């Protein structure tokens, strides 16, 4: 078909043009952030304790949400990939629902279930005196709710790609199912787990809607970076730009640092 075979493949202009447009569309807003950044006052903006509090809280909560996702999500992915559950397709749809659900809807749902008057929340409150909304734990729960599906999908994909015969071989050699999972399956799908964890972490870091609805907004306790950016935008756009820059740098650093190592598996 191609008349001349050149080493760098000739790109048809009808593909190149939309591709470049797409690239510009995705990167220009970030360039705009850099152009409009208040570089002269940036150090003042960023040395405020409120910024560091929000950033610290963001990092801690995103990491905790990822941990929760790992503990609950990996077994869930295994269940979906390796067992013949009745109604598995429905279960998978439910598990991935938070991916497409507007986060703020997730926040409302969490509030109605885990809030002080919620089905589970009222029991937690009356029995243990524990209320989850407006707490750092609430932030972690909201973030885990939206981030865990990313991990589950990634791990389930890896499990389906991994050959189950290794596990069967381990079983014939006398390993229990749990041992086979821990010693054979987990190492086999480690890259998938890591990729899913990175995705979940990045999603949790940027979480806004569910957090502000369920956990509220209070500096040092529930105000993560996205919330701080949103509130700063109402009164001090320069501060909002400065905060956004920090979040951008952290996200790029994490994705760039981990992508080649963990996410290059085809």
């Amino acid at each position, binding site marked *: 078909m191609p008349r001349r075979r050149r080493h760098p493949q000739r790109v*048809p202009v*009808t*593909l190149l*043009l*939309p591709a470049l*447009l*797409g690239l510009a*569309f995705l990167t220009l807003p970030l360039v705009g952030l850099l152009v409009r950044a208040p570089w002269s006052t940036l150090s003042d903006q960023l040395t405020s304790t409120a910024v560091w509090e929000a950033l610290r809280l963001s990092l801690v909560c995103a990491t905790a949400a990822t941990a929760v996702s790992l503990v609950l999500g990996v077994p869930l992915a295994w269940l979906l990939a390796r067992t013949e559950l009745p109604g598995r397709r429905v279960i998978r749809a439910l598990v991935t629902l938070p991916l497409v659900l*507007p*986060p*703020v809807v997730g926040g409302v749902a969490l*509030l109605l279930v885990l*809030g*002080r*008057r919620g089905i589970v929340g009222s029991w937690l409150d009356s029995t243990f005196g524990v*209320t989850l*909304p*407006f707490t750092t734990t609430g932030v972690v729960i909201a973030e885990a709710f939206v981030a865990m599906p990313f991990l589950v999908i990634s791990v389930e994909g890896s499990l389906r790609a991994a050959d189950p015969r290794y596990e069967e071989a381990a079983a014939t050699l006398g390993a229990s199912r749990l041992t086979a999972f821990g010693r054979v399956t987990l190492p086999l799908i480690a890259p998938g787990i890591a990729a899913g964890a990175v995705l979940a972490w990045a999603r949790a870091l940027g979480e*806004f*809607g569910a957090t*502000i609805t369920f956990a*509220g*907004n*209070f*500096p040092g306790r*529930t*105000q993560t970076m996205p919330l701080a950016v*949103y*509130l700063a*935008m*109402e*009164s001090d*756009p320069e501060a909002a730009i400065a905060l956004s820059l920090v979040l951008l740098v952290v996200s790029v650093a994490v994705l760039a640092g981990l992508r080649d190592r963990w996410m290059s598996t085809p």
Partner: protein
Amino acid sequence: MSHRTTTTRRLAVAAAAALALSLGVTACGSDGGSTASGSTSSAPSGSAASPSAGGSAGGSVPKASGDITVFAAASLKETFTELGKRFEAANPGAKVTFNFGGSSSLATSINSGAPADVFAAASPATMKTVTDAGGASGQPATFVKNTLTIAVPKGNPKHITGLNGLTASGVKVALCAKEVPCGAAALTALKAAGVNLTPVTLEQDVKGALTKVELGEVDASLVYRTDVKADAGKIDGVDFPEADKAVNDYPIAALAKAPNKDGATAFVAYVQSPEAKQVLGAAGFQAP
């Protein structure tokens, strides 16, 4: 010949890709709007829906027509919705669209070019951010005043009688963030009372603070007296003397870049009319 068909097919694919992209953009836009408490959602749709079609047509008759987009403080939601209906009834051909939200985020949207005709803010300070940016047409007019009250769940289960009661242990309080007018007023009132209060959450607008009380997630919140009155079936209000120290003036202005200038002027005038004053007064707003 065959090369030509290939090109055509390629173009079709590219067009499909472009279409998919633009659909994606629209979807993102509406999603982003809903996440940001609706403050930006009507901005893009407003630009498409409100060409100043009626602006010139209203020249001969002193009545407004066409689309009028009003950005108004969240605390004005009930009264302005009512005023909008009455205004439309009095001005056939006019259609008033509202964008209610925290005054500060509305001001930010206006300053970033949202196609609004009228801005009604819950404090002169937020209006000032628009006038300072040259966004208002003429001087803003103060049309009502509002004071704070303590919103508590029906029956006041924590027996709160004043601002001091908010600091009792086990009492959870939601306040507006200091960036929005109700939050600034709350800070002033608390300071005047010498009460040092740590809320559990700082909400983006007064309706957010109110909802948390309605849901029972907090025991009290400082909101406007008019909000409690509008929601009297679900919550009670506890008045406190220091509220007089934190009175919020509500300014309204037609905007310099209003797509429908005549409509904007007419609506601003209507909000200050005796009929509108009656509606606002009945809702608990005070005359300026």
